[in-house]
């Protein structure tokens, strides 16, 4: 069984927010809800300051704080390493949201559900279709799932996640500079393992000991 992970090359990222938009489009996310974000900050002081560009998403940690905190078992780590949510079990206590050091979860309530992209003008056809395709449950928590539907459908067709677009996450496909590399962390010969080894891939906030599956290289 593979363990899916991602490498993000921050040197290549041009902060185009393509990943953010592709993700919103893929999951029909309402206004204000993001499974993918791009953080832009600075380090150092003039004249040696530098700009930091970090795309962030759920880190699909193998020792996830959210999984530990969930009192019902609704949040769990799948065999393939993806941290998933069973919305039938979620009670909406939001312990997972509070405990996530990366703050990558969103509570889906009436306030979020009723938001319109064009306020006061009703929902567009796309938004209505989206609600049918991705019927998020009220009072539950939602987050990035590494586009597990795409992965599963693609693999059923014999495609390889990370190589074939129809079996890869939307944010990986859209990236115009190839800054996102998706693959199997348990395969020693995979592209992402090679990059992590060669470029000394780093995990964000490693001190929390959650073992994220998203690595950053520069």
């Amino acid at each position, binding site marked *: 069984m593979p363990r899916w992970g991602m490498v993000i090359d921050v040197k290549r990222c041009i902060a185009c927010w393509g990943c953010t938009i592709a993700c919103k489009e893929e999951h029909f996310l309402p206004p204000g809800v993001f499974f993918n974000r791009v953080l832009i900050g600075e*380090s150092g002081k003039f004249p040696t300051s530098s700009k930091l560009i970090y795309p962030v998403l759920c880190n699909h940690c193998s020792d996830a*704080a959210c999984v530990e905190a969930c009192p019902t078992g609704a949040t769990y780590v799948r065999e393939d390493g993806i941290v998933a949510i069973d919305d039938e079990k979620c009670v909406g206590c*939001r312990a997972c949201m509070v405990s996530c050091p990366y703050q990558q979860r969103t509570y889906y309530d009436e306030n979020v559900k009723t938001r319109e992209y064009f306020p006061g003008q009703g929902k567009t056809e796309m938004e209505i279709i989206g609600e049918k395709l991705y019927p998020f449950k009220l009072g539950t928590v939602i987050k990035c799932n590494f586009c597990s539907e795409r992965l599963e459908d693609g693999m059923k067709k014999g495609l390889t996640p990370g190589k074939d677009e129809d079996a890869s996450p939307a944010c990986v496909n859209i990236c115009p500079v190839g800054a996102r590399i998706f693959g199997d962390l348990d395969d020693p010969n995979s592209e992402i393992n090679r990059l992590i080894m060669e470029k000394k891939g780093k995990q964000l906030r490693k001190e929390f000991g959650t073992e994220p599956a998203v690595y950053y290289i520069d």
Partner: protein
Amino acid sequence: MNDKHQDLVETMFPSDGSGIKPYEWMISPTRQRQWIDDKGIFLWLAFFFSEIGAGLYFMSLFYSFRPGIVLGWLITLVLGGLIHMLYLGNPKRAWRMIMKPNTSELSRGIWIIGVFAVLGFLQIITPGGFNMVFNFIMGILCLLIISHGFATMNVVRALPAWNSTIVLPLSIISGIWVGHQLLQLMFAISGNAAAASGMEVWAATFFLAYFLCMLLYAWGTWHSSGAAKASIQRMLEGDLKQITYIGVGVLAILVPLVFTLIMWGGDTNGFLIFLRLASVCAGDLAIRYLIMKSAVYNPLI
């Protein structure tokens, strides 16, 4: 931009300072919102009522005072439990929260409250309920319930202001202190002036311990990390400073101190006990609010 659009922006990024600019999210210390804003306010109240109910029950055990344990049991389960349910997104599924006591502090809390409900009920209806074994077990359960709210927060490693060693002692002392005050008032109302007066000996001790825990919390948190310091700064200098100075400085410390000095030596008075209780409750609510509201996450980059 029409009004609805403005409302949407306001919802996502409040202009009253309670939110942050979109481009500051997780780049500067970002505060937790889920357990205090909007429906999160119920959690704040639920923790408070569970704590004072268990505190009253705990103190009543020492005096074998049945009305005290009945009221403590009711406050913990009816007020604490009900408000907990109001907070949940799907309260009908609350029974599922018993599923993960091995890792989840919330789940452990549900188990403890369940055992407390059953054993507490048995103690209330049993004529010889105040025996040593029962008292010991219920005492332990009360302490666990008093600390449950803060224990749930304490295990969140991502929020340094909550992940502090002194959080648990602070919650236990505050629960016992408020419980003591409630019981003293019950004695005073029921005409048992001797018991109310005798309890005053402990008032000064609990107040002092409570005050020291607050100081230790503020000092320890200030020195633990950048994000934790930012939380204390928000309390002392930021948008929460009024609650800190009035809620904590005046209501939790100054007013109880004055009343404790007035009643020094056991010269108690029902009205003064009531006023001190009201002030202590408001102060305790303020402290809990501040700790929950001021917690911030470390920036990611």
